[in-house]
């Protein structure tokens, strides 16, 4: 008995569990997946690598039954499969952990896990379900309290709930969509241990990512998508970062940015004991103090939701300050309105390009003048000189290399990278004293990311003070002269950009105060 099952496991080792052949999915005007062939084996971590819009999510949505492909065949464990809805794919043993979790905050872990299941049709045996969840959590090393409420959990713990949810539904094949985007380096390590453990138990993991480092460290095989097509499927140990990047982007990529040493200038931004509340009226910033000088980039690292948004909004006059003071070039701006702060020379590259940074249904020109329509030469008395506006936008669109069919194109139709360039064009062309940039490269492709970082470094060289708020630790470390780590609305410590130690920053991101030397 034992020996046969072992034998079976061995023989099933390299068995192909997911097979997608020549899958084509079209949307009006776009071929999102163009004859994509993708295979995943039992017991492997298979990374799906590609830029935004390369077709990774579409492909996985086809696999989970959310989309029906126009052409192609799917087989699970050798059986042809036709998924009409996610229910079918769950029944076939496929589970997905989305980038944005689908959890009910006000319910417990167990309630979330059993949510939507048909199984207990009449009487809900909660204690039994809890025991099941506890068992799974122990089996897979996913530490979690089955009775805890979701809102009490950290993001990393919530992710574990999502994984347990999939396992509880019998998932043999687990798809993780950019799972590390919300984790600290330590949490990422823990996740990776869990994933390795899961494949050792015979699960298959499909790992969607655009981060090369983590793909290299976790994946057995990598399938690279570009423009809806498969570029190649390679063994992780037979390739390297540069090769993957080139496959992903279609041209060689520079990994080093030129950040010359600069002598910082005058103090531009000084923040003293800043307090502010979040939208729920709870303290979000608890006494933050720091400064940014001209010709330097100060990075704020931290896991999302630790007060970063509130900090950016408070600095830009968009959120009331409950205590503390802010100075710009020595002048107090604590109580100024958003408009006055803009006029004082603060530029803001906001967190969300679509909802905060642009008006989707307006054209490029109308978006370019968003902060400038009241000042000459755009303003002429109470009217707007649209000829001047068009001239300015045409100049900026070409200077910042925004790719668009024309100035009358609605901002909504721009790609993420081009929209960000448009926002940078608007914000930076005003020659601001201070730039507050929040997640400036989030969701951008490699090319646009390179461009945005380059532009921030140029601004630094030109004498601006830059406050870079980002969850991407690599980005913060690459660009910043100094790094501050924020945790629950407080600064946990400061590190020099060049000599920063990832592990130490990780500890600070998890809430441990550190005295980090220079």
């Amino acid at each position, binding site marked *: 008995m034992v020996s046969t099952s072992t034998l079976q496991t061995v023989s099933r080792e390299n068995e192909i569990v997911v097979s997608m052949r020549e899958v084509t999915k079209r949307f009006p005007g776009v071929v999102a997946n163009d004859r994509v062939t993708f295979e995943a084996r039992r017991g492997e971590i298979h990374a799906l690598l590609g830029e935004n819009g390369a077709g990774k999510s579409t492909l996985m949505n086809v696999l989970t039954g959310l989309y*029906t492909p126009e052409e192609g065949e799917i087989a699970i464990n050798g059986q042809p499969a036709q998924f009409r809805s996610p229910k079918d794919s769950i029944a076939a043993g496929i589970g997905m952990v989305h980038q944005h979790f689908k959890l009910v905050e006000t319910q417990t872990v167990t309630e979330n896990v059993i949510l939507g299941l048909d199984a207990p049709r009449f009487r809900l045996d909660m204690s039994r379900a809890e025991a099941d969840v506890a068992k799974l959590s122990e089996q897979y090393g996913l530490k979690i309290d089955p009775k805890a409420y979701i809102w009490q959990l950290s993001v990393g713990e919530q992710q574990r709930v999502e994984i347990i949810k999939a396992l509880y539904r019998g998932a043999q094949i687990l798809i993780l969509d950019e799972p590390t985007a919300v984790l600290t380096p330590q949490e990422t390590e823990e996740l990776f241990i869990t994933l390795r453990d899961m494949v050792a138990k015979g699960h298959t993991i499909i790992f969607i990512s655009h981060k090369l480092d983590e793909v290299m460290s976790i994946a057995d095989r990598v399938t690279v998508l570009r423009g809806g097509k498969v570029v190649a499927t390679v063994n992780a140990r037979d390739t390297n970062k540069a090769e993957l990047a080139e496959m992903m982007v279609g041209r060689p990529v520079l990994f080093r940015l030129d950040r010359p040493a600069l002598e910082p200038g005058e103090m531009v931004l000084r923040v003293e004991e800043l307090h502010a509340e979040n939208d729920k009226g709870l303290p979000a910033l608890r006494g933050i103090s720091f400064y940014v000088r001209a010709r330097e980039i100060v990075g704020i690292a931290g896991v999302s939701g630790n007060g970063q948004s509130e900090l950016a909004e408070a600095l830009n006059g968009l959120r009331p300050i409950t205590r503390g003071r802010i100075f710009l070039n020595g002048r107090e701006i604590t109580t100024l309105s958003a408009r006055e702060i803009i006029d004082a020379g603060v530029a803001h590259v906001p967190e969300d390009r679509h909802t905060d940074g642009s008006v989707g249904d307006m054209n490029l020109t109308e978006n370019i003048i*968003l902060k400038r329509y009241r000042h000459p030469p755009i303003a002429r008395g109470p009217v707007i000189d649209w000829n001047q506006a068009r001239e300015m936008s045409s100049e900026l669109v070409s200077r910042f290399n925004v790719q668009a069919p024309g100035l009358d194109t609605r901002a909504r139709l721009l790609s993420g990278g081009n929209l960000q360039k448009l926002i940078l064009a608007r914000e930076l062309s005003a020659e601001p004293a201070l730039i507050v940039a929040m997640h400036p490269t989030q969701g951008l492709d490699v090319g646009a990311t390179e461009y945005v970082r380059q532009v921030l470094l140029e601004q630094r060289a030109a004498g601006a003070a830059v406050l870079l708020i980002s969850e991407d630790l690599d980005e913060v470390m690459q660009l910043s002269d100094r790094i501050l780590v924020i945790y629950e609305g407080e600064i946990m410590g400061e590190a020099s950009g060049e000599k920063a130690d990832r592990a130490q920053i990780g500890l600070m991101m998890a809430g441990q105060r550190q005295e980090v030397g220079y």
Partner: protein
Amino acid sequence: MIHIRLEPRLSTPRWVSWASPVVSIILALMVGAVLIAAQGASPIEAYAAMYRGALGSGFGFAETLVKAIPLMLAGLGVAIAFRMQLWNIGAEGQLWMGAWAAAGVGLFLYAAIPMPPWLAILLMMLASMLAGGLWGAIPGALKAYLNVNEILTSLMLNSVAIFWVLYFVDILWRDPGGLGFPNTAPLDKAIWLPKLGALLFFLPPTHRVHLGLAFGIIAAAFMWYALSKMQWGYEVRVIGLNKRAAGFAGMPIARNIVLVMFLSGALAGLAGMSEVAGVAHRLQRGLSPGYGFTAIIIAWLAKLNPFAIILVSILFGGLLVAGEQIQMTMGLPASISLILQGLILFFVLAGDVLSQYRIRFR
């Protein structure tokens, strides 16, 4: 099981956005035909009578224009608020408040203080705009500073306004020589809004079309100019399309909410004044058969475009006249025209969905 779902269109073909209102009207007429037939009348005859009544004669067209005046003023008022995603459902009440204020000035201030008639007319206009504007600014301020839903407040304030005005009509300002009719004394002829007379050479000389038509056209032109050329209009458009981005750009949102609701109410108030001074020449029950509500349909049908509002108002004015016509000539209920209004709106709303989404069966 067949799944029906709506899939967003990436872009809307130009012809769809134009075809949608036209097809809506045709479909509304077809459904209306069934209802007319259910009354035992011939739909073709009824529609022919409606056409003759509203557009077929110079006099009919003049009456259509008379009815179109309050519709276009209130419609423009509603549209400016809608442009900023402020759902002002209170144009009816704002119209009544404007009518009330205008009547007050025309009946009492003009009698108390000697002044030239043109000045009295101007004061009536200002008073009506102030009253309607303030009535609109109340839900505006509640929305701007306390985040109270303006749909509910503006809707409920309609009743308050109408009963307030009726209290004056029925009791305080009631004409003692009015033979028991619930209305005020008539305004002095000198302060009636002048008829456009020979200016509208294509109409019979005795037509009732008054200066209010010019108010409507000027208001539309100003609204177009403000929205497309002025900094303030640009702010209104940005706030309407993306309030958050407007805030991030430092635009004063709360102030603009109150201001736009004031203007919205002011235009509806002016519609009330033009009815008092241009048509009824007194304040009376039934002054507005729901112009302020029809204005909402008009604004939507015109896709909030000021000039389209003028055209659609004329169409709807014609519908009202036509309803009266078939009531008189064919004994059909005049509310047929209200039913047609409702049907047109239904089909336009459906058309809006279909122009943005396509239906997929699977």
